[in-house]
């Protein structure tokens, strides 16, 4: 494990008396680890299982806070339900998070110290957001990611030191977002910090206190519900209410990240018929504008980004592969057609173009009620459609219909 020898030269530590640490469990400024025991228990009809509460340390490495924002937007379940123990059968989550915690500074870091020293009154999980930056290249006293001072000597502690100290005792380590899973943008070509994912840092042999390797929920930023659902699924399992969630070879929730986003894309029909967008804003398949959806594992097309709304291709954005370990360098330059798409789009232009015409033909029949078939005219005042098929078209419809009905009765 990395040795940390950072000190704070120039700061007259101890020259001035420090503000005393708040430790009264009834004081809202005290560490939540001390306050937690005083929070009222909720009665719950569903058997609680072994876990009544669990701590969640959400630690931020080299991140943009986008994953925090993403999780705050989750609706199934929403974070406040997890934090208030409002989901039946789930333990209440006591959160230690710089954006949400009540306590600040030394009281905040005291929670981390208690966890690292195994002094909490309940199991804890770590959710790590952002890449892990290599603090061995930040110099003897420098740091890329500072998080807390050591009250004993004023030494700057880094986020990474906390991860190293807390990971062995954690019930599970969740890497939240592409930076934390695989390195993401801070690890892109040219970066000076040797940034990497949590897995890369902790290594292949890492196992949590419950024997789990790192769980990865990628996305830049991830869909909020992918985060809360994964956490809830794991907790439901721990409380004996649900089966063990399935994780794939990369530690991703398998049910969320197996399918390509293309398979569920609302524009996939255009792709199949060989119709492609050529200007930004067009409604057709975006592949020629640079969409990587056909090879990217992501569920945004069906889940949306917040409460079922939005989504990249859903609204007109190309997929840049933000959930993938190869992101961003293996998908850039963005906004250029992926080379592999040349073959598939042209094949689909030929085949899809043919099929599309046949479908259109069939559609002109299905657009008329049986009653209208006999009439000369269509009773619509809008009158946009050619009313009656003639000649060959009519013949095709007849044959099609005969074929269709010949199957009646099996």
């Amino acid at each position, binding site marked *: 494990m990395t040795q940390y020898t950072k000190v704070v030269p120039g700061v007259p530590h101890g020259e001035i008396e420090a503000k005393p640490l708040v430790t009264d469990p009834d004081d809202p400024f005290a560490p939540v680890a001390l306050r937690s025991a005083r929070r009222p228990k909720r009665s719950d009809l569903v058997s609680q299982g072994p876990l009544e509460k669990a701590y969640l340390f959400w630690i931020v490495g080299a991140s943009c806070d986008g994953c925090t924002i993403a999780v705050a937007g989750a609706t199934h379940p929403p974070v406040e339900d997890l934090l208030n123990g409002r989901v039946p059968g789930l333990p209440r989550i006591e959160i230690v998070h710089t954006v*949400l915690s009540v306590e600040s500074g030394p009281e905040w870091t005291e929670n981390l110290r208690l966890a690292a020293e195994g002094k909490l009154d309940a199991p804890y999980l770590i959710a790590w957001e952002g890449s892990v930056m290599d603090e061995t290249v930040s110099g003897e006293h420098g740091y*890329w990611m500072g998080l807390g001072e050591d009250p004993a000597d004023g030494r700057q502690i880094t986020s990474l030191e906390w991860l190293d100290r807390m990971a062995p005792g954690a019930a599970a380590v969740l890497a939240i977002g592409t930076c934390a899973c695989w390195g993401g943008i801070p690890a892109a070509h040219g970066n000076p910090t040797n940034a990497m994912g949590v897995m890369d840092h902790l290594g292949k042999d890492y196992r949590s206190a419950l024997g789990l390797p790192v769980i990865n929920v990628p996305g830049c930023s991830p869909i909020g519900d992918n985060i809360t659902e994964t956490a809830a699924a794991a907790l439901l399992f721990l409380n004996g209410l649900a089966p063990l969630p399935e994780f794939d070879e990369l530690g991703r929730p398998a049910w969320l990240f197996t399918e390509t986003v293309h398979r569920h894309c609302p524009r996939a029909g255009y792709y199949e018929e060989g119709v492609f967008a050529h200007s930004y804003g067009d409604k057709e398949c975006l592949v020629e504008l640079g969409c990587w959806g056909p090879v990217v594992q992501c569920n945004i097309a069906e889940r949306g980004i*917040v409460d079922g709304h*939005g989504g990249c291709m859903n609204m007109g954005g190309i997929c840049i592969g933000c959930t993938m370990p190869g992101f961003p360098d293996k998908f850039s330059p963005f906004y250029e057609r992926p080379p592999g798409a040349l073959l598939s789009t042209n094949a689909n232009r030929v085949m899809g173009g043919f099929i599309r015409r046949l479908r259109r033909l069939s559609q002109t029949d299905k657009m008329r009620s049986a009653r209208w078939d006999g009439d000369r005219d269509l009773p619509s005042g809008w009158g946009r459609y050619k009313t009656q098929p003639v000649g060959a078209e009519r013949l095709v419809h007849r044959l099609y219909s005969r074929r269709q009905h010949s199957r009646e009765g099996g």
Partner: protein
Amino acid sequence: MCFKNLPITFDSDGRARLAEGVADPYAVAVAEPKDFVRSAQARSSAGALAAPPRLREWSIDPVTRVAGALAVHTVLDLETRTAVEAHSMAMLFRGYEIILKGRDPRDAIDISSRACGVCGGVHSTVSSLAMEMAFGIVSPPLGTCVRNLGEVAEMFYDHPLHLGLLAGPDYSTAIVSVTNPELVERAAKTPAPHADVHGFRTVKDIMDGFNPLEGAIYLESLEYTRIARTMCTLMYGKYPHPSTLVPGGVSTTVSTSTFNEYYANLGKIFDYAKRLAGIWDDICDFFLEADPRYSDVGLRPSNLIQTGIWDDPAVYDATYANIDAWGQARYSAPGIVKDGELVTTKLTEINMGIEEFVEHSYYEDWTAGWNGSGANPNGSNGNGNGAGRGGPRFAADALGNPLSPYHAWNKETIPRPEGKNFKEKYSWATAPRWDRISMETGVYGRMWTTAMARQLPDNPYIEATGDGLRILLPAHDLPETELEWKIPAKLNAFERNRGRAYGVGFTAAIGMICLMQAFEYWRKGETRVSTPFKVPTDERVAMGAWEAGRGYLTHHLHMDKGKLLNYQINTPSTWNASPRDPFGNPGPYEEAIVGTPLLESVADDDIKGIDILRSIRSFDPCMPCTTHMDTGRGVITREVNSCGCTLE
């Protein structure tokens, strides 16, 4: 004459030039950083104070309920019950601009977006604006409307998130009953003046609403951030980190539903804005009346910098030549406020006065190796792109306005992580200054410039009165309501929060204007949202300027042969969180904390420092994008570092 410290004068045609006869116009005379602890001690030993200071050191690392990694070191004087010292520290480095170097400029849209997931859409937009200027294209009107509406919705998520979840708990019963129990008692007996609007009978009911995780206002604000995001995603696709912003407009597939769904939600925001204004009026007035010294909490001079936001689609043409005109046509005006007075609304003048210093930041001064810092032997506009230069790349912008060697287009930051040392380096944030003055930026700042500029086009919803804004919000469940926001006499923690609350109404009114405009273009059949382009292969220099939730945002780029040579991001919280500058002057957080009274009614040892935290949080700090800086030198190695350390 807007410049006092930089030697820039204007000729009779209003063209800016460097004052004649100044040998080194941008010379920096480095001064000892202000050491407020020592001055407090000196004052008392000189007998100026009744009693010597009794000091307590407080290292708030991390400061919570802010976005990103912020630490503040402060020293409290228990004798006078004030904060006497403050150092603001950005704790994280990520290096986005290094990653951008040498890339296809279009990649900057998605990569720069990851500078900040809290201001989740605005970086992509600013990046697109910069590229439009560089490529010589402009978004069609409906594309501009879509961008406007996306960013309007972003504010509906941004401000409630701060007011409800981050700042709100500081005014909650849970907190105040520990720091000032007498105020809770008083609040229980004080009827809330806006009870009919927000439904909370007494001020204590409001304070209950702010209780973390459980209070009604806390939980409701989470709900509203989600409504706002669904509005955002109609325009942006994904949030944070939009997927539909492109140079020349947007790639949003706009349909009739896009605007209809947006409209359906806007009504809810109208009501929420009315309620937020009432809630924060009642809370702020309650504290300020209970103890007028609260007006000194987080107080600093009214110096503000704003880049303006929400373009008029009919005026915006993306050219640098017309940047002043389309900047001034924005629904929220760009501007510089000095000591409460508006000194300019021209983006060229704002741009001209910007410098970034790294004296107290973990970077090397990029001008250190030059032959001269100001008088530039080799650099002239648009000529340079190499290392080993004798001077700045750009001595002037494309219009001939002088630029400092410390300007973004000349900047080349070289990260050097080292131990923190308040006399030397202590933050990953740089120190941006305008006319060498430390400037703050925020929601209230853009309302301030808009109110004073009085350049708003005729519209039924917002009137700029010169000393405030009148905002007319249509009826939803609550009746049609006129909100009136007044420019505050003192810029303190309470007025920042109040301004932010009114900012929701301000933004909602602009949303209404932009939506009506979008319907109008839609009706006229002007439904194009993007302009085709080719990435140019010759040298281009450009900037994008818009505003994030917290104000000021610029991206400056320099490209050649279709690749980025330099890409610089300057963000609101870099301004607000900046450390001391080479002249020894503190950044805005530091200024605001020093002198803040500790108004808790408890014994010395029980002081929680809540008024310090209120001061910091009132800025709505957002650190992720503060710490993204650039370098020209590639991977930092242990060797390089150890020699950096020996320099200490």
